[in-house]
């Protein structure tokens, strides 16, 4: 034996220690992997030796390799061996290795239960400490259940060093084994008043963490915490307590009222930024929960906003960032107080730090009003042009869309302006958000009926432009907007100025380079266009024109029939057949337009995204019942023969704007034209002057050469949204004048009548009337849809298990399992503590014993049930 020892220590002299390993790795930069695999082989040899010092050294090296990303799970058992060494030096290394590499899936972890229990009750506080630290990293539900009682006992240890560790680890135990919370809670509560400040702060930590997840069970502790808050000077503890109160106040508004004063005092007095920030955050949370009934509530908000302004103005980027972050919380409930700092926030948009710019962008979302939307978006558009990285540019793009579309387009007074903004955004090549722009275009065009004509004219310009087609290589790129453009032009083709021109644009050969789903929309909408052109031509009795359009379709459609995309191919061949059929009919002079348009009769309404889910199952409908009884004899109803395409009884005539609408529209259109005419910056949209000459009778004989430019002269999406800003200003000015007049009159009346408290004439949001009377169609929901919105809850919240009433008295059945080595029935020969097996020769035995114990425990459990 002695000889073996000597031999062992001689061997060890040649072993690498950790420093050698680290140095070796640094010296083998080229063939690191090879060197390390060699080292691992050596380590494997070392682990086979009996000498625990050698093993510990090996495990220490493994821990280092684990950090470098090497798998050491194969050595889990060796780690346990080192953990159970009697010498602290090795034990420390063993526990470190375990805490770094063990996780819930580590199968040998259950072998550690007894070892850990032994270490927990070790006379050396450092053995206990190391075991507690390790356990905090790899505690499993099994370990938590088996050791909960031991740890609870340690909470009353004589040494504060152990007490605070035990208190902190209880939190992990609660998470893994929620049943332990009620039995352990009284003792945990005691620790809030522990003489040692470290233990006290640990208890505060644990209870705060618990209470943050399930605040209602901890309301009864509020007075105690209030006392702690007003007496403690430890900022770490204060921050925790203040955070806890932030969680409690929504449940108990009276608490909030009590808190405001000490919190504002702290805000005034503290020099620690972290504490100040926490106080401000909690005051915000408190004020949010106390929506009303606070007398000096605006004073506190004002104080917070002031302090945050100081943070934002600070040169420290971190404070600036956090200031903006906290502002965004205030914004949700007190937008007015934040809006007064618009200058500061807009300034942050120019900050060199991208994360700060993004925070400022978040704030902008809530700062817009009808009054300043155009101005803010204009500023953002200039940022879009300047932005260097695509990520930031994309973020800007989404923010612009978010800002404009928020709360059902609440702040948009002029939808023409919005459409122009969207069109301008299509200049962003390489953006990932083409589909976002497309979705907005569709949404606006469908839901804002008054804007359709304008939208259609813009969309046809987009279809006509070449630059969008060019970027089609990228999925989700900007070419996605063509999806929207094609659909809008097709669906609302009655508004098109020059349908024939658009039709040709949509049938260009270049279109076949677009992604399949866009081509499919093209094909489908080409037919809609075609149908409306046919109708026009037939009404005008231009049979030849109609035939020419048909011929164009027959010529161009085959390019889609050859598409590799199934959807495109299928639609194209179907439609090609249809058009050929029409061609035959046209040759016989049969009017077809009516029937072709009937294909697209009816209006497509917007449907709310959750509508499908919300359809209630009608009474009496059994979803599991057979739909068809297996083959019954009853004959189906006799089917009437129908017209080829046209259903005789039109169920829903295509919606046409009613007469009054038409008049109203015309009037508004006239007014707008006038406005545009007066504005020298307005670039007139189609019809282009060239075309107008052609249309004017009398000048037809002048030969006009159509210049066929491959590059369009007019870059679509040229910055035209600016014009609206100016128009809007003028309009508002006029409105204001009118209003002032009215107000004066009213005032005079009031003077004559009773004296009333007349509010100061402030221009609020409500004063601004929209440019067009738009009615925004709400999305359709099924009738008697269920209003519940329960889909958002997370069913897998581990903290739910800790939602336990702590004030109920403890029942016997709830007591923590106390370790017994034999079941009560078999405990005739009361064995004392099973002597812990240390020597390797007994290791396998130990394992067996534990397995047995496990089985017994399970049996016991079953019996209980």
């Amino acid at each position, binding site marked *: 034996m002695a000889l073996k020892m000597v031999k062992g220590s001689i061997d060890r002299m040649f072993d690498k220690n950790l*420093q050698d390993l*680290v140095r070796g790795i640094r010296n083998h930069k080229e063939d690191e992997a090879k060197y390390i695999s060699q080292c691992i082989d050596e380590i494997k040899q070392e682990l086979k030796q009996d000498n625990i010092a050698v093993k510990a050294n090996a495990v220490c090296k493994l821990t280092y390799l684990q950090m470098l990303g090497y798998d050491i799970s194969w*050595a889990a058992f060796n780690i346990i*061996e080192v953990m159970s060494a009697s010498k602290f*030096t090795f034990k420390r290394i063993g526990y*470190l290795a375990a805490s770094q590499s063990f996780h819930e899936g580590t199968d040998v972890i259950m072998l550690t239960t007894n070892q850990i229990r032994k270490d927990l009750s070790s006379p050396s506080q450092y053995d206990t400490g190391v075991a507690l630290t390790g356990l905090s*990293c790899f505690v499993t539900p099994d370990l938590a259940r088996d050791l909960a009682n031991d740890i609870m006992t340690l909470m009353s240890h004589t040494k504060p060093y152990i007490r605070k560790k035990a208190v902190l680890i209880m939190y992990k135990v609660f998470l893994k*084994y929620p049943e332990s919370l009620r039995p352990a809670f009284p003792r945990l509560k005691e620790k809030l008043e522990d003489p040692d400040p470290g233990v006290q702060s*640990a208890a505060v930590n644990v209870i705060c963490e618990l209470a943050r997840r399930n605040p209602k069970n901890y309301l009864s502790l509020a007075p105690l915490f209030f006392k702690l808050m007003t007496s403690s000077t430890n900022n*770490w503890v204060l921050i925790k307590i203040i955070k806890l109160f932030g969680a409690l106040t929504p449940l108990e508004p009276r608490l909030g009222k009590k808190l405001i004063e000490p919190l504002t005092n702290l805000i005034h007095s503290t020099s620690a930024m972290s504490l100040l920030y926490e106080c401000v955050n909690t005051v915000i949370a408190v004020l949010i929960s106390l929506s009303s009934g606070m007398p000096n509530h605006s004073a506190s908000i004002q104080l917070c906003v002031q302090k945050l302004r100081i943070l934002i103005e600070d040169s420290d980027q971190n404070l600036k960032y956090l200031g903006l972050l906290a502002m965004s919380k205030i914004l949700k409930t007190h937008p007015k107080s934040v809006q007064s700092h618009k200058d500061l926030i807009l300034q942050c948009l120019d900050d060199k730090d991208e994360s700060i710019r993004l925070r400022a962008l978040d704030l902008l979302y809530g700062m817009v009003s009808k009054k300043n939307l155009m101005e803010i978006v204009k500023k953002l558009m200039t940022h879009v042009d300047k932005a260097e990285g695509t990520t930031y540019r994309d973020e800007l793009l989404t923010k612009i869309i978010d800002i404009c579309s928020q709360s059902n387009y609440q702040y948009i007074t002029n939808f023409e302006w919005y459409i122009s903004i969207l069109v301008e955004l299509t200049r962003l090549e390489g953006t990932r958000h083409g589909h976002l722009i497309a979705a907005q275009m569709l949404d606006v065009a469908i839901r804002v009926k008054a804007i359709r004509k304008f939208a259609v004219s813009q969309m046809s310009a987009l279809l006509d432009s070449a630059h969008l087609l060019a970027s089609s290589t990228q999925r989700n790129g900007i070419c996605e907007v063509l999806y929207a453009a094609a659909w809008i032009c097709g669906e609302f083709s009655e508004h098109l100025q020059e349908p024939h021109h658009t039709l040709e644009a949509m049938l260009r050969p270049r279109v076949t380079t677009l992604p399949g789903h866009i081509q499919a929309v093209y094909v489908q909408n080409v037919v809609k266009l075609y149908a409306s052109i046919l109708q026009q031509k037939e009404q005008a009795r231009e049979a030849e024109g109609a035939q020419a359009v048909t011929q164009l379709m027959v010529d161009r459609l085959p390019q889609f029939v050859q598409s590799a995309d199934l959807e495109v191919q299928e639609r194209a061949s179907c439609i090609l057949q249809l058009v050929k059929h029409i061609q035959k009919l046209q040759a016989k002079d049969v009017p077809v337009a009516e029937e072709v348009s009937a294909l697209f009769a009816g209006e497509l309404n917007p449907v709310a995204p959750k509508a499908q889910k919300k359809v209630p199952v009608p009474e009496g409908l059994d979803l599991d019942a057979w739909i068809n009884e297996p083959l019954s004899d009853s004959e189906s109803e006799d089917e009437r023969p129908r017209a080829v395409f046209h259903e005789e009884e039109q169920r829903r005539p295509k919606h046409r704007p009613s007469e009054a609408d038409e008049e109203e529209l015309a009037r508004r259109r006239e007014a707008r034209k006038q406005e545009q005419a007066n504005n020298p910056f307005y670039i007139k949209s189609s019809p282009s002057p060239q075309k107008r000459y052609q249309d004017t009778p009398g000048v037809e004989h002048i030969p006009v050469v159509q210049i066929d430019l491959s590059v369009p002269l007019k870059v679509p999406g040229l910055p035209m949204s600016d014009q609206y800003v100016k128009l809007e200003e003028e309009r508002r000015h006029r409105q204001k004048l009118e209003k002032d007049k009215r107000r004066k009159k009213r005032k005079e009346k009031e003077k004559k009548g009773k004296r009333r408290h007349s509010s100061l004439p402030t221009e609020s949001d409500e004063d601004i009337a929209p440019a067009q009377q738009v009615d925004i169609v709400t999305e359709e929901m099924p009738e008697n849809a269920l209003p519940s919105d329960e889909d958002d809850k997370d069913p897998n919240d581990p903290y739910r298990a800790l939602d336990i009433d702590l004030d109920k008295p403890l029942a016997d059945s709830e007591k923590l399992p106390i370790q017994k080595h034999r079941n009560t029935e078999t405990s005739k020969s009361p064995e004392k503590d099973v002597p812990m097996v240390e020597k390797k020769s007994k290791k396998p035995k130990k394992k067996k014993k534990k397995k047995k114990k496990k089985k017994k425990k399970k049996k016991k459990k079953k019996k209980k049930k």
Partner: protein
Amino acid sequence: MPAGCPPHSTTASLPQHGDRGFPFAAAAAAGQAPPRPRPAAAMQFMLLFSRQGKLRLQKWYVPLSDKEKKKITRELVQTVLARKPKMCSFLEWRDLKIVYKRYASLYFCCAIEDQDNELITLEIIHRYVELLDKYFGSVCELDIIFNFEKAYFILDEFLLGGEVQETSKKNVLKAIEQADLLQEPRHEYFNVPVY
């Protein structure tokens, strides 16, 4: 350990926690979507890495698989190193907040939960650096590389389970020194930094 008994031989007795009201297991048994790695601590993890992206220390306060840890580490190291020096120390990442700070050639990087205080986390990082500094005597990256287990021991005395366990610097250092005294003199070489 006898050679014929590989550590994996205990696979058959994997811990079963389906019947203990353990939320993850219960949810999985009910056929719901597997839970995402849920936070269970104020601080989720702490990483130390060099400017070259080499990991120098990692401490995880949430149980995650090695694969997941590696993925997170790689992602975060990349993100943090890509940031410009003048940028603020916070970033939002997945549903967590990352707080990092650079000391000389080392980045100290912590992940905290949504409601947690970024500034106090910066203070925790700073406090840890101070502790290392006191212990090693003006600490440098090499101290942490060659004595990485010491760096862990110090961290373990300062934080436990992601919570601050000792706010007094003096107490932390005292605990470490006393524990070091228990260490065997034969193993001195663990102590002495050798480069």
